[in-house]
């Protein structure tokens, strides 16, 4: 085995343009999966690594494994590998599945062994066809290569499910619901999936990137994982970087890298004085003014202290020539339409919010639209069965803070300071009554 490098880590190995790394190459490069014995050793290693979940909430991976293992060893458990990636601005999960499927499968098998799972459910967004195919091929390759031989996790059966193309389908209870009843809408919790999930068994729902890091930590150890990192949170992470022009690009960065450095990773370099704001964390995240945030380090611990989050690693730049009110209205509209339409405050609240925001963007606001928006944001928060409405109004509130003067220009003066109204959101701005 060659000496592992500090960066890239998930994307180390053969050239990425070569596509999916075959199983034989993966094993030759990294060695076979280490035996993990009882599993508690690996869980302790994960604790020591400080690895945080990469699906958005940033929950410590080791702690989640322990909660499932405590319940699952004996009665059985399930590992649900979350590759739904419903966030429109994120591409890192499908990139990982496409290029390094065996890291994800290694992580899933280690997880199955550590928590006592008999089944691994692979849950991949139906829109991410190439990623799903790569994963399916990888499963077949392993079955063939390992035929008749025992290796870590091999007793767990594997099921591949395509997640419906909905934002909420990747929420953990929705994923479990889909695996159980082919219905990808969230269900009321508790019980949470780690208590009662797929088939009624304790279920570990883990993002694909989180699992890929586990595959490396199991081989190289937690100190190796912690080597890179500039601040309190150690390690590396995947980000999807989208500039005002050009396609989204996925990068693996050292935690603690600043927004300014990430701007240089965009397909066409992003300059600060041509940037108005940064959307951090995607449609679930926050708008931050470019000036104030340019030197912010992507360090989850430091960001948490100032109420920020890296979410699922989305960093998008809004051009200084684009109207932020229009951009926000498009996202609000998208989020309202993506509600799973089960909970009143989410269905009606997000719809009312989106319609008011669209009227403001179109400089057709009613007198009370802005004051309503603020009240509705407060009313909706914390009142859905899942966090979808919280994410949506969090973004809205950040827009009202960051773009306050442009919002009131639209609302009061019925004017817009921007000519160009092209944004990164794929939703057209419709007319609402």
């Amino acid at each position: 085995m060659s000496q592992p490098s500090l960066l890239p880590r998930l994307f180390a190995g053969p050239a990425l343009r070569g596509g999916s790394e075959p199983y034989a190459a993966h094993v030759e490069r990294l060695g076979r999966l280490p035996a993990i014995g009882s599993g508690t050793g690996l869980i302790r290693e994960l604790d020591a690594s400080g690895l945080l979940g990469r699906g958005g909430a940033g929950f410590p991976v080791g702690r989640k494994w322990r909660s499932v293992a405590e319940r699952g060893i004996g009665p059985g458990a399930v590992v649900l590998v979350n590759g739904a990636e419903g966030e429109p601005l994120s591409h890192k999960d499908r990139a990982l599945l496409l290029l390094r499927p065996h890291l994800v499968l290694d992580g899933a098998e280690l997880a199955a062994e550590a928590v006592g799972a008999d089944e691994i459910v692979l849950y991949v967004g139906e829109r991410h066809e190439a990623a799903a195919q790569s994963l399916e091929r990888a499963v077949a390759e392993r079955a063939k290569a390992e035929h008749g031989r025992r290796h870590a996790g091999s007793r767990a059966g594997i099921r591949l499910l395509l997640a419906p193309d909905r934002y909420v389908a990747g929420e953990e209870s929705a994923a479990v619901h889909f695996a159980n009843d082919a219905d990808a809408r969230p269900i009321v919790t508790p019980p949470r999936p780690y208590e009662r999930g797929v088939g009624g068994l304790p279920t570990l729902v883990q993002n694909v990137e989180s699992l890929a890091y586990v595959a490396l930590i199991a081989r190289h150890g937690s100190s190796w994982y912690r080597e890179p990192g500039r601040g309190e949170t150690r390690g590396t992470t995947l980000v999807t970087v989208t500039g005002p022009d050009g396609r989204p690009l996925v990068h693996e960065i050292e935690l603690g890298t600043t927004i300014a450095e990430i701007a240089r990773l965009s397909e066409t370099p992003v300059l600060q004085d041509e940037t108005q704001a940064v959307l951090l964390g995607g449609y679930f995240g926050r708008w931050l003014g470019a000036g104030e945030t340019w030197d912010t380090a992507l360090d989850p611990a430091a960001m948490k202290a100032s109420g920020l989050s890296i979410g699922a690693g989305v960093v998008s730049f809004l051009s200084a020539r684009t109207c932020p009110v229009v951009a926000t209205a498009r996202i609000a509209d998208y989020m309202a339409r993506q509600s799973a339409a089960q909970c009143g405050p989410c269905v009606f609240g997000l719809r009312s919010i989106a319609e008011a925001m669209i009227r403001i963007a179109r400089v057709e606001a009613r007198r009370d639209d802005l004051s309503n928006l603020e009240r509705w944001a407060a009313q909706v928060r914390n009142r859905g069965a899942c966090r979808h409405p919280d994410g949506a109004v969090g973004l809205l509130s950040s827009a009202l803070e960051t773009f306050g003067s442009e919002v009131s220009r639209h609302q009061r003066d019925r004017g817009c300071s921007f000519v160009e109204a092209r944004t990164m959101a794929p939703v057209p701005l419709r007319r609402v009554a």
Partner: protein
Amino acid sequence: MMATVQLQPAHGRPLARGEIRLEVDRIACDGFGMCAELLPEIVELDDWGYPIVHSLLPKKLLPMARRAVDVCPVLALRIRQGH
């Protein structure tokens, strides 16, 4: 007219011993508003007619809360007590 919106202070967190909380199943609730009529002290309705439970349940309201649980047409309410 809508009063100030205060979210339930204990939302989501485990209850301390002796604390009582009225919880709404958000998926089941159809916004009939019966609960707000019976328990105006702790429940108000949002702009769309869905209940906002803004405080923990005082012990003296427990009988009324039990009634609300019974009359909710979709069985969306439950009372949870901290131990």
